[in-house]
C-alpha cells in the first residue's frame, strides 16, 4: 500500500480508491513473442503503479476460444480492464508504458 504513493511520478491521477482492486485480463494465443512481451510489460507496469491492487488473468484463446466473443476480442494480445469500470481495451504488446498508462486511465492523455 505504501508503494502506491511511491509510483506517483508526475501528475498521478488519484481517483484510485484505497480498497479498489484492478481486475485485468490479458488475452493471448499461445506463447507467441508478442504475447510474452505483453505479459512482461503489463506485469512491470502493474508492479510499479498498482502493486498489490491488481489481478491479472491470462486467457489463452487457443485453449478457450469460446471466450473470445464475450470480450469482443479481435486482436492479440488484448488487455481488458474489467474493473474498475468502464471497461477499457488495449491491443498490442504494451511496449509503450506511457500510452499503456493512458489507455488504462492511470494517466490522463494530456501529452503532446
Amino acid at each position, binding site marked *: 500500500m505504501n508503494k502506491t504513493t511511491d509510483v506517483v511520478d508526475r501528475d498521478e491521477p488519484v481517483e484510485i480508491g484505497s480498497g479498489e482492486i484492478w481486475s485485468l485480463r490479458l488475452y493471448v494465443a499461445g506463447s507467441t513473442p508478442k504475447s510474452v512481451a505483453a505479459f512482461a510489460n503489463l506485469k512491470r507496469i502493474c508492479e510499479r503503479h498498482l502493486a498489490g491492487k491488481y489481478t491479472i488473468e491470462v486467457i489463452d484463446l*487457443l485453449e478457450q476460444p469460446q471466450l473470445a*466473443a464475450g470480450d469482443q476480442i479481435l486482436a492479440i494480445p488484448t488487455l481488458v480492464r474489467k474493473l474498475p469500470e468502464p471497461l477499457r*481495451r488495449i491491443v*498490442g*504488446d*504494451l*511496449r509503450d508504458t506511457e500510452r499503456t498508462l493512458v489507455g488504462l486511465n492511470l494517466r490522463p492523455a494530456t501529452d503532446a
Partner: protein
Amino acid sequence: MTTTAGDVNARARELAKAPSGIEGLDEITGGGLPAGRPTLVCGGAGCGKTLFAMEFLVRGAIQHGEPGVFVTFEETGRELTDNTRSLGFDLDELIRDKKLVLDFVRVERSEIEEVGDYDLDGLFIRIGHAIDSIGARRVVLDTIEALFGGLSNAGILRAELRRLFRWLKDKGVTTVITGERGEGTLTRHGLEEYVSDCVILLDNRVIEQVSTRRLRIVKYRGSAHGTNEYPFLIDRNGISVLPITSLSLQHEVSDERIPTGIARLDAMLSGGGYYRGSTVLVSGTAGSGKSSLAAHFANACCARGERCLYVALEESPAQIVRNMRSIGIDLTPWVAKDLLRFHATRSGMYGLEMHLAVIHKLVAEFAPRAVVIDPISNLNQSGTHIDATAMLTRLIDFLKLEQITAVMTSLTSGGGALEQSEANISSLVDAWLLLRDIEIYGERNRAMYIIKSRGMAHSNQLREFLLTDRGIDLQDVYRGEEGVLTGSARQSQEARERAGALRRQQEVEAKERELDRKRAALETRILALRKEFEAEEEEARRVIRQDEASVEVIRENRLRMAVSRKADRAPEARSRKTEETRA
C-alpha cells in the same frame, strides 16, 4: 458475346462450385460460387450486400446441408435476425438447429487503445471456433472493412486480412466477404487485391427517378460466367437474379394451335388460332378493343383449364373484370380458381429491368401457359425506346423458351406512323393483329386485320370488329367502289350508290337531247349559209352580166371609132379582147 449453357457446364466440372441458392445466380455462374474459396461481394450502401450474404448462408444451410457462420461487423445478431425475418428467414431456428452461428464483432475505435505490435489472431480464433462448433462449410464476413474504422494500423490490418483470406481458403470454407464500394475502386480499402477468385458487384442505380438493382460478375477465376449486368430483385423471397440476356434463339417450337377465344378469328388464322408459345402483338388506337381481344384469349385459356397471367399496366384488375363483364366475359371464376392471376402495376413504378424481373419471377412462380401484357406501349414510359425494345426482346425470348403463348397489346397514336413506330417490335412477334378505327360520317367503327402470322396461311381480309354484350363479333365488311365501309355508312353507301346510278341515267339522256338540239341548230346554220351563198352567187352573176354588157358597149364604140379612122386589123384585136374579158 453470350456463353452457351454447354460451355458453362463443361467448365463447371473443372472447378468445384458451391450453389448459392440465390435464384438465377447459379445459372450465371454455371453452378455457384467457387467452393472453398473467398468471393468478394461489393457495392454501395443499400445495394443488398448483407442480404446477398445472408441468403447465401441460409440457403446453403437449408437447401445444401452446409452450415454457415455469419460474422457481422456492423449489425448485432439481434438486428440481423429481425431484419432478415421480413424475408422469411428464421435465423433463431437455424441457430438452435446448429446450422448457423452469428458472431457480432464490435469494432469501436474509441474503446480501443493501440500500444505496440499486435495481430488479428483473436478474430481468427473466433471464426475458427464458430466454424468448428457447427462444422460450417460457409462463412460470411460482413463488412470486414469496418476493421479499418476501428484499428488505425493499416499496415498490420492489410497483412492480417491477406493472411485471413489465405487461412479461410486453407480451411476450405466457401466465404463471402462484403465490401463497401469506394471512389473509383471496387471497395473502399481495396479488398479486391486480396480476394482474387470471384468478385461480384451489386449496384442500385437510379435513372430518371426509377431505381434498378443490378448484379455483375466482375471476375470469376477459372470459370466461364455471364458478363452482363443482370437485374435482380429483393422481395419477400429474398434475392432473384434474372439471367435474361441470353438471346440464343434456341427455343423449341410447337405445332399445337390454341384458340384465340374468338371463333371467327380462329378461322382467319387458317382455322386454328395462335401457335402455342408464339407471341402475338395486338396494336391499335385508343378504344379499338385491344384489351377485349386480350381478355377473350385469357378467358379461353382459363376455360381450357390453363393458367394465364394478366399483366395490367394501365387498369386495375377490378376495372378489367368489370369492363369485360360488359361484353359478356366473366373473369371472376377464373380468378377464384387461381387460373387467372392479375399483376397490376403502373409502368412508371419501376424501371424496365424491374418490370422484366417481376414478370420473370411471376412466371416462375405461377407457371402460366399464357401471358397477357396490356399494354406494352406503356413500358416506353419507363425507359428510352431502345431500352424498351431490348427489354421486350428479352421478355419475348424468355416466354418463348418457356413455351408460353403471349398476347401483348400496344397502344398506337394513330396516323400514318403507326406501323412505322412499331416496326422494331413487330419483327420480334409471330403474329400481329391490327385494330383500326374507321371514322366516317360522324361514326366510328372498329376493323381488324392480320398484318402477319408466321407459319400459317392467314386471311388477308379486313373484318368489322363489333363489341357486343356477347363478346367480340367479327363481320364481313362492305367492299364497294369507295373502299371498305362499316356500320351505318355501309347502309347509306348502298342507298347512295342507287341514287348515283339514277343520276347517271338522267345525265345521259340530257346529253342526248343536247346533241339533238345542237345538230338541229347546225343544220339550220348550214341552210342559212347556203341561202346566203346562193344570194351572193346571184349577185355576182348579175355584176358579171353588167360587166359584159358594158364591155360590149365599149367594143362597139371602138369599132365605130375604127371605122371612122379606117383601121384594117380590127377583127384580130376584137377576138383577143373578148378572151381577156372571159378569163
